[in-house]
């Protein structure tokens, strides 16, 4: 175990140093996304209600975490696969899950400023106070990890890196426009609502809403569904990273 922890620390340092040139840019993008969701989208509603404002504000952390996990992380991995640098890391004497843990840690940390800023700006701009539950930490951590693990299944599972790039572009489109994250599920067509009952996206948004506002959310169900997705994505990722060509 100490050896794994040592390897984790070293890989975390490697990942952090590798991403250092991009980190300011990534953080700036996160802030822009946050402001865009919380303020920009509110312009769609001339007379925004407190509930809609809360939906917009508390949906932003989920969108930011999903953008990072489902889009940014797979794209970086796809780029490494294209450059051929990826197999070098796999040839090092570290457990692959340790590498993955270090990588996931970096992505979660990259997302944090955007999440905090989105919540702060949303609450101030729309004039409501957040009701922060202690469960917010495990809830947002679970959302972040689930997003990252699903992202890994795309990145490692795609037969060619270019396909991973394409898949992430489609996912952005579907999450932004066709998912009940910044609006209630009642506003989507029934067939789409049925589909979303099996997907984790609305439950991820529920985790954010249920731990940051007084909105009525089935938090237990949300934890259950998102946890199940997290475990399944983790298992698939584990199988994918241990396979040999």
């Amino acid at each position: 175990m100490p050896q794994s922890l040592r390897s984790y620390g070293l890989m975390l340092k490697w990942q952090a140093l590798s991403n250092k040139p991009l980190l300011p840019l990534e953080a700036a993008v996160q802030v822009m996304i946050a402001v865009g969701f919380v303020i920009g989208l509110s312009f769609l509603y001339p007379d925004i209600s407190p509930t809609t404002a809360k939906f917009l504000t508390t949906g932003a952390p989920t969108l930011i975490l999903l953008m990072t996990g489902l889009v940014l992380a797979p794209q970086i991995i796809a780029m490494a696969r294209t450059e051929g640098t990826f197999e070098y890391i796999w040839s090092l004497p570290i457990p692959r899950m340790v590498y993955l843990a270090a990588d996931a840690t970096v992505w979660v940390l990259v997302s944090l400023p955007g999440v905090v800023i989105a919540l702060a700006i949303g609450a101030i701009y729309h004039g409501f106070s957040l009701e922060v539950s202690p469960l917010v930490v495990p809830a947002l951590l679970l959302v972040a990890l689930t997003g990252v693990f699903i992202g890994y299944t795309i990145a490692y599972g795609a037969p060619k890196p270019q396909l991973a790039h394409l898949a992430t572009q489609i996912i952005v489109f579907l999450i932004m426009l066709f998912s009940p994250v910044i609006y209630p599920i009642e506003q989507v067509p029934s067939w789409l609502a049925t589909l979303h009952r099996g997907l984790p996206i609305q439950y991820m948004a529920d985790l954010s809403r249920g731990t940051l506002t007084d909105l009525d959310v089935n938090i237990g169900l949300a934890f259950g569904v998102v946890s199940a997705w997290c475990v399944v994505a983790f298992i698939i990722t584990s199988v994918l990273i241990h396979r040999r060509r």
Partner: protein
Amino acid sequence: MKRDVTMKVNESGVQDVVLEIDKLHKSYVRGILVNDNISLSLRQGEIFGLLGPNGAGKTTLVNQIIGLVKPDSGSIMLDSVDIVANPGYARQACSFQAQTQVPITGLTARQAIELVGRIRGGSARHVRERAWELIDQLEMEEWANKTADSFSGGMRRLVAFCMAVVVPGRIVILDEPTNDVDPLRRRLLWQKVRALTGMGSTVLLVTHNIIEAERAVDRLAIVNEGKVVGMGTPGSLKENGNNNMRFELILEPMVEAPVLPEFMQHTVVTGQRLVTRLTEGDMAPAIQWARGLKEMGIVEEFSIGPITLEDVYVKMVGHADAQEMMEGETNHAPIASQLRTYAKVAGS
């Protein structure tokens, strides 16, 4: 190059085998074998070369040794451990410089070398000292604390080399270590490779560079189309009965290859260049024949010397723009008829 090799020798006087590959088969697309029945062994403390053209299956073989690719059949034993079943052991025991670039963007040369050294189990102090030693001996001080983003291809290769040898494994696998590296640092790098054997490591060197390999390796295998087509020491591969001399002719521009005398029955033709093997007894008639051609303005220059590993390689692997001319073949009849007389005189 100095060869103060420290080799582990067993009681029977034979070096211990560290890596044993037996009847290895691998195909990515069904029916097309990338590795076809490959068997070879690496001995403790030697530098073993793996030579072959692009697409010969060298990198696939290496990827199977370090557990990135799984063989279809056959075995790979490292220190008597089955590493097909235990790829984690292979990654612990082998340190590796890939042919592709290493992910060091954002890191300085020193950080990259030290990080891999620590990951490979070295203590912070040992790794720091060893990294500086490598940086100093490969004359990389100027780049030690600069981030890799500004490095040339050659400097990135040198950093990748240092990452592979900072805490060397039982086997150090180097895939084209000198690509893009300047000539001066190449010489320094080869000294460091030889030094690895003195530290108890065995080196598996994958390369296209036959001239460098000939000077660096103790033994080698030549791989072509997935098969091992030759294996041994550079000296043993160059031996071919009495045919140990190399005879080379350069034809004048626009002159086509002449009819060849009997002693040149296995000649490789590459453009205006004809290369063949001779016995020492054939040297005198060959010189006489070549002088005649030179006087006729057909041959620009010719030379005779000991055979090289490159000749053996070309013979075994063939070459995209080389063809073997058999006795009597020609594609220029007038010159051929002119030369037959000389060939006859030279051959008699």
